[in-house]
């Protein structure tokens, strides 16, 4: 591998690792808030236990999320010093404000976990509200930098130098609004489906007393409602993001859809392989006019194709597959969660049948894959640029050696931590089964 590819792999794998924990951290704190609120209104203690056990999950995840976030934050200076040099001049604000959100999250989380029994129930809910707010705000602010990389604004280039910097205009770049909500909605959605998986698995394994069954059903139901709502929301924010690409980053949309010729009545190609020789997606399912309709609101709308750009400015064409996987999983999860909710509303009293629980179990894994492919698409689809039309990745990457050694070191670390964190989670929840929660008066 050349140095640029090594730098990309090192930073990319660190980010891919971190976002698993970050996404679940953002999503779970939101779900804890919901559980606390439901508990406030229903006075049902099961929701307090849900909040308590999810909080333990968050505490374990944060053991990895916080240092891996530190890795990502520091490593971007190490692997892409050329990029960070521009960041410091144009888009340093969201990073700075993110630290603020990070502080709010860390302080209130400790307060929520370790001072819960010394707080009034209102203060406790306020604390967990700020935890969720801080986590979500961190996600929004980091996405702000990512959106700026796609639609850089707030500066001019005079004789090759950055000039006339307007920091707030950089923050309010055009891609910000749609990418930020898409990231937040998909983080909530991914987490909800991971929780659905756990709940469905527990119910499926059986061997539960009626109290436990009722507890897991409540957990599953709350997650299904959140999952269904956020997956529909994610589809809508995803649609807005695609329209945003059409308006501001057309080359990325063209690569995502494998569209070569600029045309009205552009077809939507599902799966298949974009082939520059054939000038089309080979082996895909084509829906005539659909892409024009999605991007412009009319089948007559013109969508720009890859051939309008220099070939050296094309993203790698396999992003079409990443894009399809992301959209496919999103669609599937809407179907599954809505289906499960419909079943519940039709056969109110009946428990979920085995086949339905079996269908729910893999949803969490799918959601994580969808989230990862979405991020891979967002970052690889921007290539060969780090900052769109301004800085090439090859110019941003570090020139220093030793990257291979560092890459091996960190990949081993990530594999190790994934395995151990999973074991620790399993161990903890086995050692502290639900039955224990009913024996003591919960302190949370």
């Amino acid at each position: 591998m050349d140095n640029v590819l090594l730098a990309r792999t090192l930073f990319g794998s660190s980010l891919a690792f971190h976002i698993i924990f970050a996404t679940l951290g953002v999503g779970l704190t939101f779900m804890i808030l919901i559980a606390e609120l439901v508990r406030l209104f229903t006075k049902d203690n099961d929701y307090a236990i849900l909040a308590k056990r999810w909080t333990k999950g968050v505490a374990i995840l944060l053991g990895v999320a916080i240092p891996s976030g530190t890795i990502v934050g520091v490593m971007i200076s190490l692997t892409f010093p050329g990029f960070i040099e521009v960041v410091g001049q144009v888009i340093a604000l969201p990073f700075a404000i993110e630290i603020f959100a990070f502080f709010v999250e860390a302080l209130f989380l400790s307060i929520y976990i370790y001072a819960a029994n010394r707080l009034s129930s209102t203060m406790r809910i306020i604390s967990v509200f700020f935890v969720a707010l801080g986590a979500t705000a961190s996600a929004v602010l980091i996405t702000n930098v990512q959106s700026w990389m796609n639609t850089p604004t707030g500066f001019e280039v005079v004789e090759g130098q950055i000039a006339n910097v307007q920091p707030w205009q950089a923050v309010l770049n055009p891609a910000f609004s749609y990418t930020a909500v898409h990231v937040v909605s998909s983080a909530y959605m991914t987490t909800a489906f991971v929780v659905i998986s756990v709940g469905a698995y527990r119910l499926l394994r059986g061997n539960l007393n009626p109290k436990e069954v009722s507890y897991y059903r409540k957990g599953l139901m709350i997650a299904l409602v959140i999952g269904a709502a956020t997956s529909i929301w994610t589809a809508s924010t995803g649609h807005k993001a695609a329209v945003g690409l059409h308006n501001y980053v057309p080359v990325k949309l063209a690569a995502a859809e494998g569209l070569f010729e600029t045309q009205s009545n552009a077809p939507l190609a599902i799966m298949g392989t974009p082939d520059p020789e054939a000038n089309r997606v080979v082996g895909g399912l084509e829906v005539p006019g659909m892409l024009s309709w999605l991007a412009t609101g009319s089948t007559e709308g013109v969508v720009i194709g890859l051939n309008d750009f220099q070939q050296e400015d094309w993203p790698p064409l396999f992003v079409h597959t990443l894009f399809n996987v992301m959209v496919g999983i999103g669609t599937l999860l809407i179907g599954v969660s809505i289906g499960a909710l419909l079943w519940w509303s039709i056969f109110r009293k009946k428990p979920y049948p085995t086949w339905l629980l079996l269908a729910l179990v893999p949803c969490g894994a799918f959601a994580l894959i969808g989230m990862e492919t979405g991020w891979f698409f967002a970052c690889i689809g921007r290539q060969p640029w780090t900052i769109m039309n301004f800085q090439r990745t090859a110019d941003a990457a570090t020139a220093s050696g030793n990257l291979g050694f560092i890459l091996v070191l960190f990949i081993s670390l990530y594999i190790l931590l994934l395995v151990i964190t999973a074991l620790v989670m399993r161990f903890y929840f086995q050692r502290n089964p639900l039955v224990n929660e009913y024996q003591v008066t919960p302190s949370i």
Partner: protein
Amino acid sequence: MHEAYVAISIIWLFLFIYAIGGAIDFGAGFWAMYYYERKGTTAANFANLYLSPSWEVTNVFLVLFVVALAGFFPGAAFALGSLMIVPVSLVLFLLTIRSAFMVYSYTVQKYTKVLRYISGITGLLIPALMLTVLPIIIGGFIEVVGDRHYILFNKVLTSPTVYAHIGFGLASQLFLSSLFLSDYAREANSNETYEEYRKNAIIFGPIMLSFAVAATLTLIPEAVWMVENMAREWELFALSMFAFSIGYSALWWPSKKVRIGQPRIAVILIVLQYAIASFAYGWAHMPYIVYPELTIFDGLTNFAMYQSLLWGYIVMMAILIPLFIWFWRLFLKDKRYLTSEK
């Protein structure tokens, strides 16, 4: 005052806060390991009582420092990022193991011992490794070939001053954390733990000071300009030495609450000692960030960004300070919390 000086002062402040907070954090992690399963003492419990709610917040200060440095001095982020990739990667690696295993050790009681050993030892190495950056960036360890910079590892690994800095890092964290935890134990009225940490502080105070002197003296062959600049600031260093002497002696002052010593006064004066000494060190460092390549003036961001960041940090800190005070009351003063794990 030139903007570069305002910006570098803010960086110094953030770094100083993290240096103190990090030293106490990693030191406490070490003591939690050292006293684990030791009969007749609750010293390990106190270390954990402090660590569990605070480690995340301490970690944010590290990120705050890095982000502020990259924002105010993008040129420095570029130079340091290229140059420091190996040492900084190692720090990140250790930091991740340390934090993750510390959380695991709280979660999985069955394996607490081994998990706590891993996190305690990796934590101990972090400040030591961080301190090696100081001699590297002030010269003698960097070779420039064309426009590429290289760290001369052969020189780093055989240099006495690097080892003196490592020793200073180790001794500082053990000294500061013992001192802090002795005061923490006093706050909780745990006399026996207070005595234990007071004893540690008494041992590590002079060791820390000897390493500080050794680190400076061994710098002479590597970066004589720095030592000359430091000599120019001798009043400040003398003042810091004075703060140390009084602070250290406070461990023997009479007290109504404990057998002997005033740990709160000791903590305040020793933190003051570090503040003065690190400020003097930083002042002697000026105007270089990386000697002799990069000054604070070359590295500074543009004026518009400088202003937005400055105001951003001022507003942010104004909002956060009451929150920090509340946090302090909940976990460092509230008797209900302090006595919960005795």
